[in-house]
């Protein structure tokens, strides 16, 4: 430990609260939407989850970096988070797969981090006030000016930032299906789960047209997770509207779930501070079973905005009753708000990928 030697860093919230901590990762200044995740494992997966694009991520679990980072546990090819807030970062990680420290990871991807602050206090502020913008800086600052800059910040349209414009193909060992994976900022494990189940996966850019997609003659379409406000993606919604008519088996996760709801006339709403963590209970209404799920979202589909004509809510959050899944009747499609691909988090709902396979089998 570098007792007494680390550089000072500050976290400034839009409500004027200033936390004094220490700098790790890159030095400098960054502004983002400040959110917290209650996940106790999987910080590398969190840091590489594209859904955090534009956000300053706070870990409520105080000890981060314990097992270091490795070259395998990436959920994208880099990190899209704006800033990173932890209570304590570990300089002496221990794990047989550890290749580097969390500090070096942040430096490598140019992420500004702050540690040694009371993350519980920060979390309680966000919980009470709602998600708000914030700034991490290692430089001297003028509070008034900083607050003005923080106030002007908007996450904005971030899907294009984390998607790509090229098409990528992944082969399964004994392929049985061809699946198009709509890349709104997808997590690698969605692809891995599909490939492991015998799907050849074609990853398509977020703005691919329905025609381009259909031209691939897919057995199924996977709508990925992604960052930001779903309503910021009207083109994607239009594309989905066309795809519904094609009656192709479709499975949506997170942003994919929200976009398909919008395409079916549903509405989405911003939650006060979202669901981010690995312990969210979700009830599958059909099975009458509750599962522990991994989640990362700030918006939710409004339950009663799903018209009976298009489908029905299939899953709800056991804590707050928000919509966690929709089963469509107008197309062979189902979507969930949570992350059955886990990484990080529990794999308890991986059976949904099996259901997607079954759905494709039925429609083949």
């Amino acid at each position, binding site marked *: 430990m570098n007792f007494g030697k680390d550089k000072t860093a500050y976290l400034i919230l839009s409500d004027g609260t200033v936390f004094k901590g220490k700098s790790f990762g890159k030095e400098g200044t960054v502004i983002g939407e400040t959110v917290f995740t209650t996940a106790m494992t999987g910080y590398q997966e969190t840091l590489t989850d594209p859904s955090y694009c534009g956000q300053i991520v706070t870990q409520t679990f105080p000890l981060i970096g314990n097992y270091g980072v490795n070259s395998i546990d990436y959920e994208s090819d880099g990190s899209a988070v704006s800033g990173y807030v932890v209570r304590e970062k570990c300089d002496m990680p221990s794990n047989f797969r550890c290749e580097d420290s969390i500090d070096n990871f942040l430096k490598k991807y140019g992420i500004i981090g702050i540690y040694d602050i009371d993350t519980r206090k920060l979390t309680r502020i966000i919980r009470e006030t709602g998600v708000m913008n914030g700034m991490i800086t290692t430089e001297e600052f003028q509070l008034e000016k900083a607050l003005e800059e923080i106030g002007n910040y908007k996450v904005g349209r971030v899907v294009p930032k984390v998607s790509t414009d090229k098409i990528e193909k992944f082969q399964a060992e004994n392929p049985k299906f061809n699946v198009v994976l709509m890349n709104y900022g997808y997590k690698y494990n969605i692809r891995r789960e599909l490939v492991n189940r015998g799907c050849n996966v074609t990853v398509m850019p977020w703005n691919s047209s329905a025609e381009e997609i259909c031209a691939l003659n897919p057995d199924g379409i996977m709508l990925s997770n992604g960052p930001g406000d779903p309503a910021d993606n009207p083109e994607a919604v239009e594309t989905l509207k066309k795809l519904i008519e094609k009656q192709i088996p479709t499975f949506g996760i997170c942003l994919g779930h929200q976009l398909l709801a919008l395409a079916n006339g549903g509405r989405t709403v911003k939650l006060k501070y979202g669901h981010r963590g690995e312990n969210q209970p979700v009830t599958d209404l059909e099975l009458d079973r509750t599962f522990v799920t991994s989640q990362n979202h700030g918006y939710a589909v409004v339950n009663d905005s799903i018209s009976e004509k298009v489908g029905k809510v299939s899953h709800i959050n056991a804590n707050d009753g928000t919509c966690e899944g929709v089963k469509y009747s107008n197309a062979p499609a189902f979507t969930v708000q949570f992350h059955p691909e886990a990484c*990080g988090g529990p794999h308890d709902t991986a059976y949904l990928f099996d259901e997607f396979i079954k759905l494709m089998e039925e429609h083949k």
Partner: protein
Amino acid sequence: MPLRSDIKKVLMIGSGPIVIGQAAEFDYAGSQACRVLKQEGLEVVLVNSNPATIMTDKHMADKIYIEPLTLDCLKRIIEMEKPDSILSTLGGQTGLTLSMQLAEEGFLESHNVKLLGANPLTIHKAEDRQAFKDTMEEIGEPCIPSKVVETLEDAMDFANNEIGYPVIVRPAFTLGGTGGGIANNADELHEIAINGLRMSPIHQILVERCISGWKEIEFEVIRDAKGNVITVCSMENFDPVGVHTGDSIVVAPAVTLADREYQMLRTAALNIIQALKVEGGCNCQFALKPDSFEYAVIEVNPRVSRSSALASKATGYPIAKVATRIAIGYSLDEILNQVTGKTYACFEPAIDYIVVKFPKWPFDKFVYAKKTLGTQMKATGEIMAIGPSFEAAMMKAVRSIELGMNTMRKRDFAAMSDEEVLNKLHDVDVDRSFCVFEALKRGISVDTICEITKIDKWFVSKLKNLKELEDWLSEGDLTQEKYDTAKKYCYLDKSIEEISGKSLKECGIEKRHAVYKMVDTCAAEFSADTPYFYSTYDEENEAEEFLKQHPTDKKKVLVFGSGPIRIGQGIEFDYCSVHCVWALKEMGCEAILCNNNPETVSTDFDTGDRLYFDPLTFEDVDSLIATEKPDGVVVQFGGQTAIKLTKHLQEIGANIMGTCAESIDAAEDRELFDELLEKCDIPRPAGETVFTTEEALQAANRLGYPVLLRPSYVLGGQNMIIAHADSDVEEYMKIITSHKLENPVLIDKYMMGTEVEVDAICDGTDFLIPGIMEHIERAGIHSGDSISVYPAQTLNERVKKVIITYTERLAKALKVIGLVNIQYVVYDHQVYVIEVNPRSSRTVPYISKVTGVPMVDIATKIMLGHSLREQGYTSGLYPECEYIAVKVPVFSFEKLHDVDTQLGPEMKSTGECLGIAKTFSEALYKGLIAAGFKMQYSGGVLFTVRNQDKPEIIDLASRFEALGFDIYATGGTASVLNRNMIATNFTYRIKEEKEPNVITLLESGKINYVISTSETGRDPARDSVKMRRKASERSIACLTSIDTANALVSCLEMHKSIDDVEMVDITKI
């Protein structure tokens, strides 16, 4: 699914006396279960032989039987009470095993009793080694290569020819792994396997590949009948596989696992609980190879356990309550999370701190016992510390464990050379974590330490941080920055001064008080109303905020708990603390608890109005008082741990409710105590105070042997002996001076009379004695180790009157407000005072239950200003009740090798049970049965006693002979007996090196009882100790007091069985 309609009346089986491996955690779980069942409107019948428990309190269940936990008793109670169900999973291994036996015999079916929580098949699959392996194989969960064997030959064959050494031996169905161990070669296996086969009630052991050095990870999982499953908490052991998890430092959550390994093991745990179809809580232990994803399932417990108590306290998730609700029909998504009031039980707690559990071992008492750790648990209790970092939690843990340490620096290591420290790292013993710290201080590298100890680098690196912090503190000036940093790691001010060598005041340091954070199960994601806090050195004080949001006109009273369970300070003090809190609440006060023991009811967040889970040291208490600003503090119910705070609390101006600090001092300070006795005109055995060996020898000779030696300020007779000669005094003083005790040693003339004990309640004017207890063993055996009888059976009215008068004088002279415990010895019809403790005592729970006088409640109300008379009591002795109660101590000798089983002035028992009946002999019979004595009516009795006891054994031996026993004895004893016409078989002593000697005789299986007393003991190298150890290892009852033996033989002479005695529902007393 709501409450099952076919459940109306439930039988709960408790876990019995406290033994190593089964402590207060089951009182916590059982009490929670009882409360849930009653809330659900069910009729609850409770059976537990342990009278010190909260669960055996009158309002916890509808019918309460403090009866032996044997199949015969349970069957009789089931026949009488006709419950429709049994809850099997909340009474520890004892409850589970008994439930399974009742089910397997078909008794439950024939009496239409359902087994709730875990069905027989589940229990069988989890507990039977082979069935477990088969089940794991079916679901593809890896086990360690192993074989279940029932003979020594098979064990040897498997190890020699299939898996090689080292191997681990695990006996089936034993508590805390009793009788198991690691064998490095064939010779060792031979010994361990024989022992293990004998210890297992079904004569079965598992021989398995030794995976020492792998990480040990645990998951607490819960499942409901619908199949919903969650994990409540993960835990990681500081010590790798090889050390019993009960003896390991444990952290929650697991800290060195990446998401991939974590989820792999979590999924495995869920698969296991699904396969076993547990309806309730389950503990899964895994071994994970540190350099790959290879893992193995070590053990699964389909019930609540020590780990589930820890997980409950570590997360705020009440596992026992939820498990009980599930057992009676509810599903996880129907059970509200009490902590948030918003979320449901079907979620996994997220925590934003780290928890360290530290075991409490009895080796400060058993100086000769081996301190090595292995697969057999040795700890009697544990503490838990919560902090924002591992380092901070560890600092709190070391001072909570009451070893006289405030940092990781252990004095014993200071004198060692670097090489000795390096060598010492190889010892897997109770001091290992401190040795690692010392090694780091000596500059031994993290890698070297990890290589030797196999402790994960993460833990060693964290200890290195502490070492570096201490280096930084000791270099140059002590700055505010350094101070603040040390405080963040929860160092005490005192330690900072000690390490830096500077005074905070002189350095102009601004001192800081701790602030408090809430334990809320959800890492602050939801606002919670749980009044459960721990200290940190941050800015935000959530407790203060909570107090502002919940203003009250009520009087605020802070109650200090008793810390870890240890010999001499057990569950009874938790009983007292909890009762005090309940009484305070009943009286309209706000009751606040502070304690650090995760096993207890007192640390359940809804016992008091608020709970602070923190160490009980002066500085920790200062911060707490600064935040809470209580109107009063209570110290007299938390044993010596709380009493020790008295003086300090008075100094900082806290209002101590009840007996004041001066009175406590007067009872504990020898000179003040002598003055007091003189003033009261009460005699006590002659005695002196000494500091050195020379003084001790002179004093002993002046008083005349035998003499009693003990340090002042003792607890549970710690370090107390009876010396018969100069050599004993010399040996004793050598040990005492090596402990660097600051207090003097007391030497008293030892009087071998009848010991009498009294607990009294006093309000300053009046005093109430609920009952007078008499010990079966004569003075010289610690009161906690004696069989105690209420009401006293042999005292005449005159003696009783004297005792009552003395009690009154002492209580008044000491200005006792609340409880006082006084021990007397009656010698030659004279009454002498031995000891006065102006606080609650070990006997308070049982006397309260038997006499119906709720002692703690009354005492608490007195503290609040309500006199005894106001409460409807008059001065003097309370009328005796129609029942006789006999308290019998229970020991954990089979778990502690090298501990001499001979009883003496130093307490050795870990727990107790009670026999209640209308006659003394029946009560004694029940008590002995409950304590595990087997009533055998034929076989052999071996006598080997010291000279002074020889005259007394003649009658004893003839009674055994008359019962049909064969009598065996060693040299001198045999000739005395034969001379007195008792046909005695002669046997050699060990040192005579001829056969048959006592050891071969014990191994032959011919002996059922051993009567052994010797002048000296303790040292395991002595023959007498070896012989008693052998008896303990062979589970042969060994009586080391002629009085106990006489009591046993009178029971045998009754020729009764448990069917002949009445089962007593204590709610009807």
